């Protein structure tokens, strides 16, 4: 038994951290929030150079055949940097294709994913709760309806759309009858979109597309990676709070010597440390197809939402007024953690799903 990252994983973690520090420093995050595509493209390019496009694709399809634990490690670093790029939607898409695409579809689409010719966004949010009139219907004439909070649409060539029956379809992002618009969101660093479909031509995944199979895999993977992102973002907020507590002086001493401040930091650390193991365990369980894997992914998502929210607030508080400023930029992490909490289901919804998976509902 060995519950630790492999040497390769530790090396990948270090490379991801290094390239993101280089290409996504705070100024780049700030520019991305102002809708400057420069840093966004730079970060996406750096991640691609790390191999994230082929990471989850099976080796016989031209990929690296790595697992969700590897993806979670990279995503954690994206969260740590509050980076304007991430691998959540691309990873969901690959896993959705593997779960619900036919062999031919997998080969055709994944080859183009690996080459970078195709970039897939994911429109599956309604699976975790539909708001207003959202929902997509599939008919002989194509897909119609709308899906909100599409992930990864900013530079996507195609969108994987779940219909109301849980089947997954692929539409071209700029095809006829497809309208994609970025939503004005609190987290301005990443792009969340709405897709409107009007008899849009699409390709349905026809592998084991028993209703729900593909979309559920996509949601599960998305939840896991959102948890990993929050883990990284919360760790950065904690680290920054501890660093600030060691340098800021009041009453003639560093504030980190006041027990109220020390205990805030200790509570954050005590909550966050087990979360790292929880995310690793959930990712590994999904890779192994373990019995409790889906339950763990749900619980990781819900728990990181709670712990992340606590840390986002507490770390800001440790910084005093400075924490509240735009200047310090801590709010990018605060907002990212807040967004991750709601995406693909808030904690109550996700816990309900975990209960259902265990036959407790």
């Amino acid at each position, binding site marked *: *038994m*060995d519950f630790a990252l492999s040497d390769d994983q530790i090396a990948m973690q270090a490379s991801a951290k290094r390239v993101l520090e280089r290409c996504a420093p705070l100024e780049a995050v700030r520019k991305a929030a102002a809708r400057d595509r420069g840093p966004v493209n730079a970060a996406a390019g750096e991640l691609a150079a790390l191999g994230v496009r082929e990471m989850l694709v099976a080796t016989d399809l031209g990929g690296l055949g790595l697992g969700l634990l590897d993806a979670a490690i990279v995503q954690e670093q994206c969260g740590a940097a509050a980076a304007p790029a991430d691998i959540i939607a691309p990873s969901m898409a690959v896993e959705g294709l593997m779960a619900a695409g036919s062999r031919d579809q997998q080969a055709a689409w994944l080859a183009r994913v690996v080459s970078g010719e195709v970039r897939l966004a994911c429109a599956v949010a309604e699976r975790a709760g539909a708001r207003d009139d959202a929902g997509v219907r599939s008919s002989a004439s194509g897909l119609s309806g709308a899906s909100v909070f599409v992930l990864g649409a900013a530079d996507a060539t195609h969108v994987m759309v779940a219909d109301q029956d849980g089947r997954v379809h692929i539409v071209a992002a700029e095809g006829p009858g497809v309208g994609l618009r970025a939503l004005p969101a609190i987290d301005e660093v990443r792009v969340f979109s709405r897709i409107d479909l009007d008899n849009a031509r699409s390709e349905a995944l026809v592998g084991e597309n028993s209703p729900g199979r593909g979309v559920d895999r996509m949601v599960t993977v998305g939840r896991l990676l959102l948890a990993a992102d929050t883990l990284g973002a919360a760790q950065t907020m904690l680290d920054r709070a*501890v660093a600030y507590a060691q340098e800021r002086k009041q009453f003639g001493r560093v504030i980190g010597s006041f027990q109220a401040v020390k205990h805030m*930091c200790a509570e954050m650390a005590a909550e966050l440390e087990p979360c790292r193991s929880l995310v690793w365990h959930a990712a590994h369980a999904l890779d192994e197809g373990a019995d409790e894997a889906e339950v763990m992914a749900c*619980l990781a998502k819900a728990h990181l939402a709670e712990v992340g929210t606590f840390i986002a607030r507490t770390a800001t508080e440790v910084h005093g007024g400075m924490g509240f400023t735009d200047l310090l930029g801590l709010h990018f992490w605060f907002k990212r953690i807040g967004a991750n909490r709601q995406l693909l289901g808030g904690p109550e919804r996700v*816990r309900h799903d975990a209960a259902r998976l265990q036959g407790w509902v």
Partner: protein
Amino acid sequence: MDLRLSARHAAFRDHVLAVLDSNRDKAPTSEHRGLKHPRRLAWQRLLIENGIAARTVPEAYGGFGAPPDILEARIIAEAFASTGLPRPLANQGISMLVPTLLELGTEEQKQTLVRPTLHGEMVWCQGYSEPGSGSDLASLATRAHIDGDDYVINGQKIWTSTAREADMIFCLVRTEADAPKHKGISYLLFSMATPGIEIRPLVDMTGAANFNEVFFTDVRVPRRQIMGAPGEGWAVANATLKHERGMLGDPSATKARFMRLVALMRRETVDGMALMHNPLLRDRLLALQARVFAMQANGLRVTTRQLRNEPAGMPELVVKLQGCELNHEIARLAIDALGELGLLYGDHPQLRDAGEWQQMYMYDLGLIIGGGTAQIQKNIISERGLGLPREPRASGG
């Protein structure tokens, strides 16, 4: 990352489960009261003989004599969690004193004390805390001076669990009055039957007297009954405390408790509806389940780090604080789920689970306080784990 067990460890797990399963009928239950009930001692003996308790203690000292193997220890803990059978004895003598004795005791001490302790025949109490010295343990004031071949002890201990049942005490006393506060302490081992010891029970919130006050008046203890060198007792005490904190946050025990809560919520009904179908209670249950999973995964990480001889860091430092807190929260949800039935205490046909939730809800608050309070744990996490400035040290230290 690889959570599979090697063939050897898988075989070991099967062995443990087989032994437990085939001896189910011999397990003591809550009816077998008393620390030395024959049925409890027999169960302990059976576990030791089969290498399930005292596994790594050398045979010469009454253990099973297997080489240390962290993973085996974990497999054993999980086997008890999954079968729900009573665990091996884990009192202060076995969990705290024996490892310290094996590390720092004299050959004579090991020969005479370890075997009966492991078998539950020699019960110990821990004489650390005093009325003026709780969190600030090193300020303790119970004195011992040398007179011929003996130490002569005068002073008082408090919160001493199981002092009335105990045969022996491991006790911190100040032997060098003028030394700095961490330096002048010695660690003595002696019989509770020694003349000059008076025990007064202290009733706690559970209604039972789980702990006591212990008074020493000219208690004579032979000088060779010291562990470690004179004046070095603080280091010895820290070795013991390390073992206590490990014992207090065991994640497989927490998992077992969580599973009992799941069973309770599936079984109990209000207005004819199972509590599990109450969405508010269920949501709280799932939030706790996430924390149980997190502490279990953290435990896997701790085990791996121990297997690799890595130094203790944040994953280890958070176990006592988070584990005890989580245990208490699980009991708290059980109490809320029981509602008014949770008020019952003592024999009554409507009492559920023999009142264990009421008991745990109260006693576990004690465990959050004992063995280093939650606040002291936070001091340790922020200082050793995060590198924040240390608390001011009191005089002399």
